[in-house]
């Protein structure tokens, strides 16, 4: 495939860049303090302005500027998702590769550990772990990262099992390639597509998961916003102050959609089989 990009993917990349930019530049973009409350100005609709400032997207139930909170919230949501996906992808893919390559007892050990972890519903494990470790950003990343790796392992394992039976791997082995080289150069690219698909859909799930924990009251600590915590707080006002859930919900939706579409596109590019055609 050549370096040409379709217009669709350019839009997606631009949107993703926009999210990263918004998160990184929240300090510059927001003209109000996301933590500054004004109890007299609570639940004001979008477009409200006062003598001193204006609220483009309205205010929340403590009179804070929703636009500023969404911008700063992007930072928390993106960081949680990126870090936890990285942790689980790294741990999960490595274990899956090893299990698929060595098979035998390694595979039995790894895959039974996977079964063990996967059979405990992630949300229950997360709630329990937060109870033990105490809440906080780092806990959140660890809890999400270390409860979700088994999904990558299962996919990596199943894919590796398929790939190692392919003739060219045997050919590479016979040509004297070492196991590390075969794993990284020949097998990893082959299984990267499905792993990417898992990672991208997990990325969205992690953002939703953080939101779910916020709903249960155990997400990012107040008063700092994340999209999940803004929405969890705003759902009580679905009818009275729709903007509290609609704007962060729309941001979340567009981001997850873009990441998933990007994942599909990326997969088509990294998959050597579809590239050869």
């Amino acid at each position, binding site marked *: 495939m050549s370096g040409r990009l379709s217009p669709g993917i350019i839009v997606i990349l631009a949107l993703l860049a926009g999210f990263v930019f918004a998160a990184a530049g929240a300090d510059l973009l927001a003209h109000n303090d996301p933590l500054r409350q004004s109890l007299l100005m609570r639940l004001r609709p979008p477009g409200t302005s006062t003598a001193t400032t204006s609220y483009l997207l309205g205010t929340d139930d403590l009179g804070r500027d929703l636009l500023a909170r969404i911008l700063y919230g992007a930072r928390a949501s993106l960081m949680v998702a990126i870090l936890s996906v990285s942790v689980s992808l790294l741990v999960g893919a490595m274990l899956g590769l090893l299990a698929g390559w060595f098979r035998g007892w390694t595979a039995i050990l790894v895959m039974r550990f996977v079964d063990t972890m996967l059979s405990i*519903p992630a949300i229950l494990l997360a709630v329990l772990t937060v109870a033990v470790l105490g809440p906080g950003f780092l806990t959140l990343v660890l809890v999400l990262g270390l409860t979700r790796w088994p999904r990558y392992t299962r996919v990596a394992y199943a894919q590796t099992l398929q790939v190692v039976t392919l003739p060219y791997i045997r050919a590479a082995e016979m040509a004297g390639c070492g196991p590390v080289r075969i794993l990284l150069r020949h097998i990893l690219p082959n299984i990267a597509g499905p792993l990417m698909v898992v990672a991208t859909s997990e990325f969205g799930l992690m953002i939703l998961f953080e939101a779910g924990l916020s709903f249960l009251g155990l997400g990012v600590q107040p008063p700092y916003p994340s999209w999940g915590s803004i929405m969890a707080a705003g*759902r009580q006002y*679905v009818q009275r102050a729709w903007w509290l859930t609609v704007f962060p919900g729309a941001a979340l939706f567009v981001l997850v959609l873009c990441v998933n579409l990007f994942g599909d596109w990326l997969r088509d590019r990294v998959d050597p089989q579809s590239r050869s055609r």
Partner: protein
Amino acid sequence: MIRQLAGRVGQAIVATFGVLTIVFFIMRLSGDPTLLLVPEGATAQQIAELRHALGFDRPLLVQYVAYLADLARLDLGESLVQRAGVAGIVAERIPYTVALATGALLVALGIGIPAGVAMAVWRGSVLERALAGFVLTGQSLPTFWSGILLILLFGVALGWLPTSGADSLQSLVMPSIALGALTMSTFARMTRIAVLDELSRDYVTAARARGLSLRAAVLRHVLRNAAIPVVTIAALEVGNLLAGAVIVETVFAWPGIGQLAIQSIAARDFLVVQAIVLFVSTVYIGMNLLADIAYAVIDPRIRLEQ
């Protein structure tokens, strides 16, 4: 084959045991329910007395051994909060959970698989993009929000479906959609990828060169082979459908074991949580065993590991 199977079952039992051990110790590290059981004005001495009466002042290892001993006698114990047999408490919720998981799986597979096939076959078309956006919608919205929107739309505004509860088949519809929508796109995407992979393989090209239509190729060969990753994901999802439906069950007041689990964690009702985990992990590990066997049947290239 039978020996292999016996080995796998043995491993499954070990995995279940691992689950129980992990959950036992994490739960105990998170404190005990004594403080939740005493009235607000209780004194330190009264609390100590209740803690002793409940047995939570014993060393952790002693409690663990006592728990395993009870379990070995197939005794799941009595709930500290509800003062009733744990087995009964959990068993009462299982039909609701199975109903919801089935409904959700029907929604997810019923929409996800055809959408995935269509996305692969009509790759690059407007249809693919529209379908991709559609199946992703369910996965891109927090359930605690989309759930209440569903209730307000179909329950309050249109009056088509009951707003909460579990007393009729109608009340199963909204929770199934909400839960199924979460995994629908996973199935669609895995199906799409698997079908694309198969479509690009030599045997499909060969078959098509022999004059087989695309439709026939998909139906005859591709779907069968593409089923492997889809089966993997389906097996993976079962655990989450069983007890991961915490938020859906909370929003729709569906009395499944997810809701029971989260309430029991909040109440530190240890034995109930452990019984739930035992149930979920047994089902889950059993499903995965079946999935592993299914691989071997569907794809002769893969054999059960010893």
